[in-house]
């Protein structure tokens, strides 16, 4: 994966704009450090989960059918 630039107030402004979330002035600076830390860790987890050995894993959000799971529903 390409090397990522650090999260900045400008990045946050752009993300808020994409989400149509009107941030009050100064909010970008408040959340900057936490978002940077969380994005870094989330990207690391994404890299891990993109490995070939996990290709067939479905997310835990899919519908399952009682009686057919490993615990017997």
């Amino acid at each position, binding site marked *: 994966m390409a090397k990522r630039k650090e999260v900045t107030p400008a990045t*946050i402004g752009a*993300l*808020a704009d994409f*989400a*149509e*979330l*009107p*941030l*009050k002035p100064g*909010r970008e600076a*408040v*959340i900057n450090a*936490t*978002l940077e*830390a*969380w*994005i870094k*860790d*989330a*990207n*690391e*987890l*994404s890299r*891990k*989960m*993109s490995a070939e050995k*996990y290709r067939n*894993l*479905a*997310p*835990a*959000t899919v519908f399952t059918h*009682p009686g057919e799971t*490993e*615990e017997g*529903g």
Partner: protein
Amino acid sequence: MGKAAKELLELSLAQAARFVKTGEVSPVDLVGASLERIKAVNDRLSAYISVFEDEARKVAKAAETMIMAGHDLGPLHGIPVALKDNLAVKGFRTTAGSKILKDWIPDHDATVTERLRRAGAIFVGKLNMHEFAWGGTSDNPHYGAVRNPWDTERFPAGSSGGSGVAVAARTCYGAIGTDTGGSIRLPSAINGVVGIRPTYGRVSNHGIIPLAWSMDTAGPMTRTVEDCAIMFNAIAGHDPNDASTSRTPVVDYTEALNRGVKGLRIGVVPGYFFHHLQPPVRDAVKAALKTLEGLGADVVDVNIENIHGNISAQLTIEAAEPSTYHQRWLREQPENYGADVRSLLEIGEMLLATHYLQAQRYRTLLRQEFIEAFKKVDVFICPTLPFTATKVGAMKVVIENAVEEDMLSAIMQFTGVPSLTGLPSLNVPCGFDPDGLPVGMQIIGRPFDEALLFRMGAAFQSVTDFHKRAPDL
């Protein structure tokens, strides 16, 4: 408060329920003692948002009349309990600890509320919490910071901080909390009480203000494991109003409490379960394992290859789902959120869909590894959290080497695992640090095997007295 009332409040829920049935104690006296205790301590603890004084006294009088007429409502007949303020109670304000819902009066009971009512419980009030359950400190900007009864300068953890404090401070015999990333187990550990996060789908979430739909659960918090099992009996089971609940049959969760732990296998994950801990926490939980070994259990190292990474997955999911629920309010009235919750909700809008779904794929992986590991062991045991109570208002915590860490990530080191995998887990008090602050251990079990967790917890409490100690208020 007179001596009699004090003695009543020291009874366990099970003892009080037995005395009500035999007519030795009246529900009127139990509720009276509970309400007086709330009056005496709530100014210092901020555990209750609402107290149902008139209603509780009326219901207690009716409960007394019924029992005298030989009409027993059930295992909780006449027992004062309290509910976290994100559970709907028909006709009574339910705030979720927020300003946004400060005037919301539900027109229905949550299923848990209704089931407790049907089992005879009497509600004495609604409990303070971290705003909308999104956080682990219960430092609530709208209803006051909840304070730890063992040291009122310390935090009670959260988000069900009021529930943990209300039980530890002997203001009620049991409380309901909700748990997404640790919100029952953390305040149970920090306040020295028992609390269970059920298997996902074992207890209905109908009528509870959601935090993160794919991980939300509700469960009881009490002083003893037996009390917890009695309350769990009343609330567990399928609910047609909540499609996420399971039809797997319930059992009598009190039935196996006295069977002991001989021959049971306890798993410990090397390199994770006893890594990165404050020393008193490590020592207390290791001593608890020795106690259980002394009772005949075997402790076995079991590797969970991908356990690292769980905190990020937890935070990603717990950020994205609440931000979805709160999307409209965050745009219409952001100023009505407390500072920390507002920031977390904004952050949750900025994670990518791929982050969220990779975290959900990680859950599948972690669950598979635990299900496989349960072929070798019956339960896992680890600390519930790596530290004891910090000062009220602290956003950082020091666990080792004088390094300050972010509270939210640090507090979920162990509770995130059951939350992500949907497995049940029970906090049991297992010691105190040198400052007299409680330490808890977390027992994690197979899906729908809550009875085994209660059995192990009860065996531990049968030979220890940590759960009998009371804070000096």
